[in-house]
């Protein structure tokens, strides 16, 4: 076991080197092309495409048997796969154009019909006298170990082509995926660009047949980009992370399957991609669950702190500066324990002066100015909501440190005047920053 482990890791076999390099390159190319496929919201098309290659493969095999060509040649089978994959995409487009069916239905129909036809032909092949279907099964479940060096060269060239096209047409593909109608009006050839992008996806699918197989090829198109989205809000970075994740997943999958013979490589590659996805979902820097949870908790904590400060300020405004816990409790429906801990926190932070018993407290200098700022902001937002009800809901941002950060100064001045006026009429408490005349 240890010996085989080192043999794999140190790339001592020529065959292992070929397989690893091929799988790794394929993974990276799939991650790159998949990024655009995902952003174009066509992930399911990738799945349909993979399944739709089967009838072409079996037909190519049958033809080869009939005419006496070597039926195992990957390039020959790949040709059949390409033709039927493209025919499958054409069928999806045709159904969409001629009927009023939605995309998901069109995709499901084509996927199942093409795959069904392929399975039927496959079992016919298996019943042929002397006909061996083994060469085909490796394309369904994926078996990179069967890769010859000429196959590896094909993978290498195809992957470089995919990477090159994605690199050169990065901004064109970005525009296509983001805003197709604008691209059209600006004079970009949207349809040819779209066809080219789909052509790259077909190429990746064909290349992937040998590595992960028909059933799982979509996984490497979709999972690495989806995982990469958790790490970055920038398309360039996302594409690089997706390419890296795809390559790495393939590498890990191939190594794992070399160590655990008997388990299919394609499945192990997909599982390692899924592992990367799971990790990204949890700890991704931009949208991971943990970072989002922390940000939400931080926001909730800030909100509670602001509520307490405002409540204390308003109690002091109505009555005497020293405020009791009961007075603050009466202001809002909060839990006594929560309020207590917040008050001791505020005391520790030097915003409150608290009696040793903790029953009454007072805003000190720093606390007072902080509370004034919060109360002023809050009251101005309220006035804004009252007076600009038509547009305000889209605009109100209580998270903003100062209302001036969101609204322009002229509007804020106008709101201040309104607040003064309402305070003079004793309709609302006044602006704490200003003394009324």
């Amino acid at each position, binding site marked *: 076991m240890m010996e085989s482990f080192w043999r794999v890791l140190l790339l001592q076999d020529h065959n292992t080197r070929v397989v690893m390099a091929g799988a790794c390159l394929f993974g990276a190319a799939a991650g790159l092309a998949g990024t655009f496929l995902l*952003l174009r919201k066509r992930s399911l098309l990738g799945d349909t495409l993979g399944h739709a290659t089967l009838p072409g493969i079996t037909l190519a095999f049958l033809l080869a048997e009939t005419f006496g060509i070597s039926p195992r040649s990957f390039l020959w089978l790949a040709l059949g796969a390409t033709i039927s994959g493209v025919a499958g995409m054409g069928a999806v487009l045709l159904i969409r154009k001629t009927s009023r069916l939605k995309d998901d239905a069109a995709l499901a129909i084509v996927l199942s019909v093409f795959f069904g036809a392929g399975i039927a032909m496959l079992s016919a092949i298996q019943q042929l006298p002397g006909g061996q279907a083994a060469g085909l099964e490796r394309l369904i479940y994926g078996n990179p170990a069967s890769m010859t060096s000429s196959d590896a060269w094909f993978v290498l060239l195809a992957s470089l082509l995919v990477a090159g096209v994605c690199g*050169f*047409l990065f901004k064109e593909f*970005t525009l296509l995926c983001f805003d197709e109608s604008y691209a059209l009006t*600006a004079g970009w050839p949207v349809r040819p660009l779209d066809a080219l992008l789909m052509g790259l996806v077909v190429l990746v699918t064909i290349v992937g047949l040998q590595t992960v197989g028909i059933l799982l090829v979509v996984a490497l198109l979709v999972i690495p980009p989806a995982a990469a989205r958790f790490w970055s809000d*920038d398309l360039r970075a996302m594409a690089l992370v997706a390419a890296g994740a795809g390559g790495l997943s393939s590498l890990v999958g191939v190594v794992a399957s070399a160590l655990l013979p008997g388990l299919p490589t394609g499945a192990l590659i997909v599982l390692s991609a899924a592992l990367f996805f799971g990790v990204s979902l949890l700890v991704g820097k931009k949208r991971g669950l943990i970072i989002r949870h922390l940000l939400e908790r931080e926001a909730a904590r800030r909100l509670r702190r602001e509520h307490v400060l405002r409540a204390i300020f308003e109690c002091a405004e109505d009555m005497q500066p020293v405020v009791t816990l009961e007075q603050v409790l009466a202001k809002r429906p909060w839990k006594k324990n929560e309020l207590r801990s917040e008050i001791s926190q505020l005391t520790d932070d030097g915003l409150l002066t608290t009696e040793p018993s903790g029953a009454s407290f007072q805003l000190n200098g720093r606390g007072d100015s902080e509370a004034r700022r919060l109360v002023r902001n809050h009251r101005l937002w309220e006035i804004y909501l009252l007076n600009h009800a038509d547009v305000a809901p*889209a605009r109100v941002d209580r998270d903003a440190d100062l209302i001036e950060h969101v609204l322009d100064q002229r509007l804020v001045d106008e709101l201040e005047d309104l607040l003064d006026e309402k305070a003079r009429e004793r309709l609302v408490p006044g602006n704490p920053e200003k003394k009324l005349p």
Partner: protein
Amino acid sequence: MSTHPLEIRSLNVAYHRKMVLWDADLCIRPGRSTAIVGPNGAGKSTLLKAALGLIPAASGEVLFYGEPLKKVRSRVAYVPQRESVDWDFPVSARDVVAMGLYKKIGWCLPVRARHKRMADEALADVGLADFAGRQISQLSGGQQQRVFLARALAQKAELHLMDEPFASVDAATEQAILTLLRRLKDQGGTVVCVHHDLDTVAEYFDDVVLLNMRVVAQGPASEVLTPDNLRKTYGARLTLLDEAVVDLSRPGAPRES
């Protein structure tokens, strides 16, 4: 040869055999702002999209500056409805505005520092100088609308076609758009907006096109916005039917323009 920025002659558009636009005739005057106004489902956005070739027209002719759109694309900028794209897309405000420069940059070449500067200038023109690096999902609806405007600005076109730029935006954005409309006109440009709010039409725009599947009236706002025209556009469908019947009974009757 016409010098009108946009001229549409008997444009017909149908969705699945259902007519959306009937023989729309339209003439946009240069150096002015025009609002296309009408009730929901009147075909306002359809008119713009069909003119730009985004949806197929059943028949009719559309000329930009007297030529088919293909020949004068760089002179025409389109601002789609904000809802038409996915704002969760992983790009920054600057990236979106730079898309207006892609044609200038050309095939396969990357966006360079000077293009980014141009994008930033366009963003500053709509009051978003501080938001250039922000991911677009973290902008408010009004700010997103302004990013779209900045993209069209960066294109430095002469005719701007905007689909509902004022739809559910905040006061600051409304002001920014109005300032922009004025500036575009001062520079000799022409602006056409699909607009939904009858209250502000006369205040915001020079010319008005009243549309309800057909062009009811067009011309200077003060002349077009008459109670009679508005009733024909918004009012009871019966009025429209009555007229159609009259029109049919008199095949030679002159069209209203």
